[in-house]
């Protein structure tokens, strides 16, 4: 047996995104955001997208390019504090925004990736975040039912990969990437290095290539990946 080869270019991979798709984007702030795939998606131009990402990056970075291009209808996120442009679009009704508690968003994505329908949580009970959610009793306690979340496509950033699509992340660039890797019908990863099979140690792989459909090697990194000067 030999593990299949899933290498692709960023341009070939991104065409799997279609109008109306739900697209998950890895990253928490800059680390782990797939800036090159996002740039390619802007070029590709799929419209009416639902974007799932922890945050909306900052103005003129990452997700903001999608927002500025008018490709996004809906944003499922946890915090827009660093992107006043995204808040403006939300307040003027140009995009629909759904806020989740951060760990609840992470867990909803994980549940989608784990083939579950959802999970029971007491987070937000007694606050407006609980409004409209299904309530259930379990083991004598009251919980909210949080539905699983899946996407048509996930766009990820990895530090390194192999040709089968095994991925490893670095530092806090891991964040939502391994969760989203499991939760989409089509998973596309950009990686700063792509090794031949065997280039990653079997115990140190963070996402098995089983979950990954396409892996693309990044060229020189754009400035978006760099340390933000404030």
């Amino acid at each position: 047996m030999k593990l299949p080869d899933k290498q692709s270019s960023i341009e070939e991979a991104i065409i799997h995104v279609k109008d109306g798709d739900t697209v998950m984007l890895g990253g928490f702030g800059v680390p782990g955001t797939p800036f090159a795939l996002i740039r390619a998606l802007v070029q590709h131009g799929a419209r009416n997208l639902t974007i799932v990402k922890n945050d909306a990056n900052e103005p003129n970075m990452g997700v903001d390019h999608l927002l500025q291009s008018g490709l996004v209808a809906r944003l499922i996120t946890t915090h827009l504090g660093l992107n006043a442009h995204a808040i403006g679009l939300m307040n003027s009704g140009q995009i629909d925004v759904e806020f989740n508690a951060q760990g609840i968003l992470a867990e909803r994505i994980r549940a989608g990736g784990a083939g579950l329908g959802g999970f029971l949580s007491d987070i937000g009970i007694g606050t407006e975040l609980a409004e409209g959610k299904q309530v259930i009793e379990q083991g004598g306690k009251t919980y909210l039912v949080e539905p699983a979340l899946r996407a048509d496509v996930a766009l990820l950033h990895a530090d390194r990969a192999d040709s089968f699509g095994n991925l490893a992340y670095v530092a806090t660039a891991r964040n939502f990437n391994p969760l989203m890797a499991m939760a989409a019908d089509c998973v596309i990863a950009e990686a700063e290095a792509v090794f031949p099979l065997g280039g990653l140690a079997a115990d140190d792989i963070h996402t098995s290539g089983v979950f990954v459909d396409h892996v693309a090697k990044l060229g020189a990194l754009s400035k978006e990946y760099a340390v933000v000067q404030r």
Partner: protein
Amino acid sequence: MSNAKERMVVRAARELQPGMVVNLGIGLPTKVVNHLPADFPVCLHTENGLAGIGPTLPSDQANRNLIDAGGAYVSTIPGSAFFDSATSFALVRSGRLDLTMLGAFEVAANGDLANWKIPGKFSPGVGGGIELAQKAQRVAVLTTHTDRAGNPKLKERCSLPLTAQACVARIFTDMAVIDVEANGFTLVETAQGVSVAEIIDATGAALRVPDTELPKF
């Protein structure tokens, strides 16, 4: 292994398509791996936490920390990855298995599978079988056509507790390859030296037999 069983396993091995992620259940299905070309592009999964199973090793070469779900000492291949049990079944339940091959006590004409419990006689627990049967994109069964007493294992309905409902797509036996279709069992191929009449006789449910010449294996 009898010659007929051997041919069943060889035939079943052809069911694996390049690029697939496959889980081979304990017992006969595991033997399918011996009939794949060395460079065949496939990823074998075992539910105790490995994608990319390599060849089984004799105990003097075994790694004490590296087994498959059946307890056999296996190896890795370049690109193998280990993960925990929750991730392993996340993979299964989210539909990332293209194919699983399982053993069976009984298969019903609607695809119901019973392979884990015989009330009062055999109840070691369900293990990971239920999730494989219910969630793999395609479930194939490898089994002898009849039990040791000669009773059919392919039946109108299962009499034993189910593993999963309406999950089986194809059955490989020592007598035939049979598909489960909307209207029940359909004969697809016959084993060498076995007549259609013998297969019908050994099958405990209606068997549709196409008018065309059937391949032999």
